């Protein structure tokens, strides 16, 4: 492969340091004092975990940092990750009443980070788990959904063990979030905290391979499935076996190890797809030293699933967007040398359907590239879940009761990307917490409520 020249350690550091800087104490208090302390604040409603935002912010202003951390953690078990990774523009900060006043919304994410940085530094004791209730939960997957379920489960008195196939826990918090948003260490800090509450984690254990479903059912009263979407969707593209063809999530995981000089990137990189993961793959390629990065998307700009602020970031990184462009095949001898594409046009679908892209005949062109990263979505995949009775899976989503997160098999609960098709960390954090409460209500029906 035509590998882009390696950068100096200094350059890597500059490219991948977090682009949102922390507040110092003075700045945090100033920002906290700007908060109106709305009643029933809209930001709280907009946060999927419903953190009592104006309350934790007021506590920053009064210097009650312990109380601030408690307010946050009572609603969300991975708040540092959320503070850094949440798309706040469309969540809490997007709902801030200051937007209606044509003033800058309160920097909720940064304030949340301020409190959590303090908390993980000082490590005051905040919570005491309920006394053991005699039941156990087996959690599959240590992403935010699994971690939240486990932490909440321990608080409710359960004996909880997480099984994680990776050697390093944390799911995509550890292996997915762009390093310029958040380092791996932050995710691991949260994992460590949750362990300190009494959660056991067995890493390097893949359910369905190292341990069977039967063994799990034997060992635990209930099981929480938080496996995310472990498998990259495939588009059959001739030439996909060439050296230099990567799946976005796998490639990003390599970058997340934070040993940047060991990750080869092509001089010219084409990314297929235009969701948030595709943008991450593009911006991370640029930061690794790629000279030209293209995003190839078969639909128009209006239809991209990436957030506008992510798109803007990629534009700042000089990523070039090819709208209405469909990849046809990858060419090269042994390794990638070109991506052949064709132009598309939108044609009216049958009544009521959105317009469909259709190839323009004779529009084929060849884009010389050294690397192709496929980012067309993730799948639940075909694995051990097929061995679980009565589990209903449709469209790569496990079906659950939206209140209790119980699946059609009453012993199984699920949450996170594996039930919603891939949303955000904060949704997974909510699901996991609610599922543990659902499990408690299911196993102890009289004491619940």
């Amino acid at each position: 492969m035509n590998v882009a020249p390696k950068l100096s350690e200094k350059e890597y550091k500059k490219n991948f340091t977090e682009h949102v800087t922390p507040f110092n104490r003075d700045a945090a208090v100033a920002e906290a004092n700007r908060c109106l302390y709305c009643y029933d604040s809209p930001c709280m409603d907009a946060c999927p975990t419903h953190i009592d935002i104006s309350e934790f912010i007021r506590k920053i202003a009064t210097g009650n940092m312990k109380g601030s951390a408690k307010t946050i953690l009572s609603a969300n078990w991975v708040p540092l990750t959320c503070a850094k990774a949440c798309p706040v523009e469309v969540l809490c900060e997007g709902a801030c009443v200051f937007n209606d006043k044509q003033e800058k919304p309160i920097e909720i994410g940064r304030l949340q980070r301020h409190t959590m940085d303090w908390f993980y530094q000082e490590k005051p004791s905040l919570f005491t788990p309920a006394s053991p209730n005699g039941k156990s939960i087996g959690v599959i997957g240590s992403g935010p959904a699994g971690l939240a379920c486990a932490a909440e489960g321990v608080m409710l008195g359960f004996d909880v063990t997480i099984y994680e196939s990776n050697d390093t826990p944390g799911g995509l918090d550890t292996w997915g979030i762009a390093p310029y948003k958040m380092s791996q260490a932050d995710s691991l800090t949260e994992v460590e905290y949750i362990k300190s509450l009494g959660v056991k984690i067995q890493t390097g254990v893949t359910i369905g391979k190292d341990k069977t479903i039967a063994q799990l059912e034997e060992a635990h009263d209930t099981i929480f499935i938080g496996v995310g979407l472990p498998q990259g969707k495939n588009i059959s593209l001739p030439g996909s076996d060439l050296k230099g063809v990567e799946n976005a999530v796998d490639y990003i995981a390599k970058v997340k190890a934070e040993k940047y000089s060991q990750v080869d990137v092509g001089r010219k990189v084409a990314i297929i797809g235009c969701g948030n993961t595709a943008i991450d793959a593009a911006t991370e390629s640029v930061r690794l030293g790629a000279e030209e990065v293209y995003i190839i998307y078969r639909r128009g700009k209006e239809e991209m699933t990436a957030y506008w602020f992510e798109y803007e970031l990629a534009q700042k990184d000089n990523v070039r967007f090819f709208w209405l462009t469909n990849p046809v095949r990858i060419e090269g001898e042994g390794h990638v040398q070109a991506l052949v594409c064709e132009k598309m046009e939108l044609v009216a679908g049958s009544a009521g359907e959105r317009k469909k892209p259709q190839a323009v005949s004779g529009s084929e062109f060849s884009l010389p590239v050294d690397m192709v990263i496929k980012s067309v979505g993730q799948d639940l995949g075909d694995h051990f879940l097929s061995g679980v009775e009565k589990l209903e899976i449709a469209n790569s989503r496990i079906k659950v009761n939206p209140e209790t997160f119980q699946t059609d098999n009453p012993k199984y609960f699920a949450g996170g990307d594996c039930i919603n098709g891939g949303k955000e960390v904060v949704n997974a954090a909510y699901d996991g917490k609610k599922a543990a409460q659902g499990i408690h209500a299911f196993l102890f029906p009289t004491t619940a409520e």
Partner: protein
Amino acid sequence: MVDLSINCGGIKSPNPFWLASAPPSNSAYQVCKAFEDGWGGAVWKTIGAPVMNVCNRYGGMDYAGTKIVGLNNVELISDRDFDLNLKEIAETKKRFPNHAVIVSLMMESQKEIWEDAVKRTIDTGCDGIELNYGCPHGMSERGMGSAVGQVPEYCEMITEWVTNVSTIPVLVKLTPNVTDILPPARAAKRANAHGISLINTINSIIGVDLDSLAIRPDVAGKGSHGGYAGPAVKPIALHMTSQVAADPQVNLPISGMGGVSNWRDAVEFMLLGASSVQVCTAVMHYGFRIVEDMKEGMATWMQEKGFKTCDEFIGKSVPRIAQFGDFDLLKKTVAKIDEDTCINCNLCYIACEDGAHQCIDRVEIKESTKLQPRVREEDCVGCDLCSLVCPVEGCISMVEVPRIKEGSITWPELVAKLPQPMTWEDLRAYQKQYGIEIH
């Protein structure tokens, strides 16, 4: 162009802005610099008996991220030699003949000492003398400062010693640490003072340090009451200024102060009767440069209002000062929320619900999860709390509503009208005629 010059009890200055007797007017260097920056006058930092200051001497009252909404101090009068001060005062006056230089004095309560000090002060060529009867700490224990200001008889006696020998105007500076400001003000009048300065600082403890439990300001582990000044004291100072201005027995020019930070504050003091305003804390916080905006802002306001000289508006709001018994009990206003500018923070809702009269509901907004506050006008008592907490300028207004029956009545009139002693039943029956129902 408008004319900003004033005459306060015979002391003339090119504009009404004077440095108050305090650290900013401690030396010739400072006063000259202030005049160069545009101040119209300065009351020299009080000079007099020998003193020694302590560290720390100031405490700041911060609120919600705003520094020094109030400032307290346990500072004494000038700790520089009496003679050195007089020399610098003379030099300053020579350099700035058209600016007002007033010398603040605080001497031991003996006639000869005062007379000697006054004569030597007049020799500097200064424009006036201010008698400091206000300092609430350190000096009062020695029978000076507020120990004088709090006893009208002392106030009258010492002022008389001074006015008997003085050939220049004498202002008497009062302490607010009294239950009624009028007796000392009237005492000054009886003793032929030319004007009243007020207020000096208010007794206060700024706070307690939650780590060390020390009282702030912390003087080597000990704390004491100190004098409070700055923006937070303005309402108290405005009230006292208005009282002195409205009292027919006092009837003296006023130099007003206490929390003046900008031209708006200054205009308020002047509307309530002050013919000059003095500033200390705001200068200690930001420096002399604040006078630029003070002069410009006041001049622009005067132009907009059609006032050509300060005299045209000094005291203009004094006739509006009334008693509760003068108020019309039948005027009714209710809160109106402008839906278009409302940002749905619901601060008005919770304020009315928990802190007032439970008359704001929250209604659903189309295509939004937010709830919008709406006033139930029939229940609103017109207290104004909601509009005060509203963060959007002009969003909540108090609008007058017609009564089912026209009329107006004051409390004394009502007392005369209803059988005495008044019963709740009779009062309710009267209110009902006008559609007033209190739940």
